[in-house]
């Protein structure tokens, strides 16, 4: 990761789960059942701990003893100015810019308990390749997002399909916790996560933000 990017996005990595309409819709029936009882009311949040930080062109380790590993293409919002109790109309004033996030995870069969073991492994959160200033992206709410494995398109969507857009997320999160300058909001991974294997080259592309590339390596191969 470039040192400039490291500095601009040095805060907490907050993930938002179930933030693509297609993904949420596909689970709604299940979410009426135990243990969920009803669909989520507020944004479903998780934290990628600092050991998960990784960069462009870096390896991502496929852990020993694990059967399946899945990349998670997502747009990252970098907070530029502390946001506490910010309204939707003011929210974008707190955004420094955007970057690509590949939110690697083991497959999640349940959303009931925090997914620490699935999501907090070393190097499971590449970000990059660079911070694109907010002013350069006219409408972050209509960007194509693509995942390519060994050059083959495997997953694609558009940020127009978010459940909550960036101002809504900033308003709802900052109601109870300050978003600090340098924090990153990982705005969600679309439905259709794919499996990757050691040796694969994984790229995430987002319109206007470039291309974040990582290679998957078996644990012990580094």
């Amino acid at each position, binding site marked *: 990761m470039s040192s400039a990017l490291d500095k601009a996005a040095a805060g907490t990595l907050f993930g938002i789960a179930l933030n693509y309409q297609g993904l949420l819709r596909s689970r709604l029936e299940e979410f009426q059942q135990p*243990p969920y009882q009803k669909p989520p009311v507020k944004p*479903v949040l998780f934290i990628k701990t600092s050991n998960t930080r990784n960069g462009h062109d870096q390896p991502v380790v496929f852990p020993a003893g694990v059967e399946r590993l899945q990349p998670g293409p997502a747009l990252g919002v970098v907070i530029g100015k502390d946001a506490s*109790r910010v309204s939707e109309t003011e929210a974008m004033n707190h955004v420094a810019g955007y970057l690509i996030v590949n939110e690697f995870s083991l497959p999640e069969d349940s959303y009931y308990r*925090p*997914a620490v073991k699935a999501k*907090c492994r070393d190097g499971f959160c590449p970000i990059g390749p660079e911070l694109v200033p907010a002013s350069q992206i006219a409408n972050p709410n209509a960007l194509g997002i693509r995942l390519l494995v060994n050059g083959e398109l495997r997953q694609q969507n558009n940020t127009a399909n978010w459940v909550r857009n960036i101002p809504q997320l900033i308003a709802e999160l900052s109601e109870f*916790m300050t978003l600090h300058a340098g924090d990153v909001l990982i705005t969600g991974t679309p439905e259709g996560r794919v499996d990757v294997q050691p040796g694969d080259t994984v790229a995430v592309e987002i319109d206007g933000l470039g291309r974040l590339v990582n290679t998957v390596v078996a644990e012990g191969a580094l």
Partner: protein
Amino acid sequence: MKHARIRFQGDIHAVTVEDNNAVRLADGRLLAEDQVEWLPPANGSMFALGLNYADHAAELAFSPPTEPLAFIKSPGTYTGHNQVTWRPDNVAYMHYECELVAVIGKPARNVKREDALQYLAGYTVCNDYAIRDYLENYYRPNLRVKNRDATTPVGPWIVDVADVPDATNLKLRTWINGELKQEGTTADMIFDIPYLIEYFSSFMTLQPGDMIATGTPEGLADVVPGDEVVVEVEGVGRLVNRIVSESEFFAARG
């Protein structure tokens, strides 16, 4: 020895703590407990354990877990000793949780439990407040319950591992306005600290400054603005916090 972080006249200092909670600055000055602003003694991620005392699990009508149930907190939710925490307006149940906290001192990966204590910077105390009204069944307990601004007092200090001969036999107690409300012992923990370090480090690297909050025993109660809440872990520390209203908290913060 006890190590703390404080703010005094606008500057942050790493200090040691002496008799009567007076703090010794690096330049030799000695300041009284109430002269300084106490900051959280560490600022990494906090791995907080849910249902790690059998009696508390029963209190919440859960079976004890067979694998640690952990959720993560980020530094924005920490606050120091003698600081305030806000109760949101219009909630029915906000409760404290007195917990022993292990602070990581060096990177820990694939650590065996017999070596685990070598990776600690020491122990501290936290009050892992929860707003139960906001519980949802997604990544439960969710961040809106557990990761609110200034809603996890931590401290007052980190005490050296060598000064706590047996962390598996410490009394935990909570008082509201001087009245004892919660009493338990770390002997009743389901997963102890060496086990937890082995567990987390088996799949990730724990970083210096990361903390493991080891859960709370039974005896929860509601707290309201004006309450003074004290959590104490025997031989580690006594952490004082005061509850304020939402409007008072945000007015003071400006």
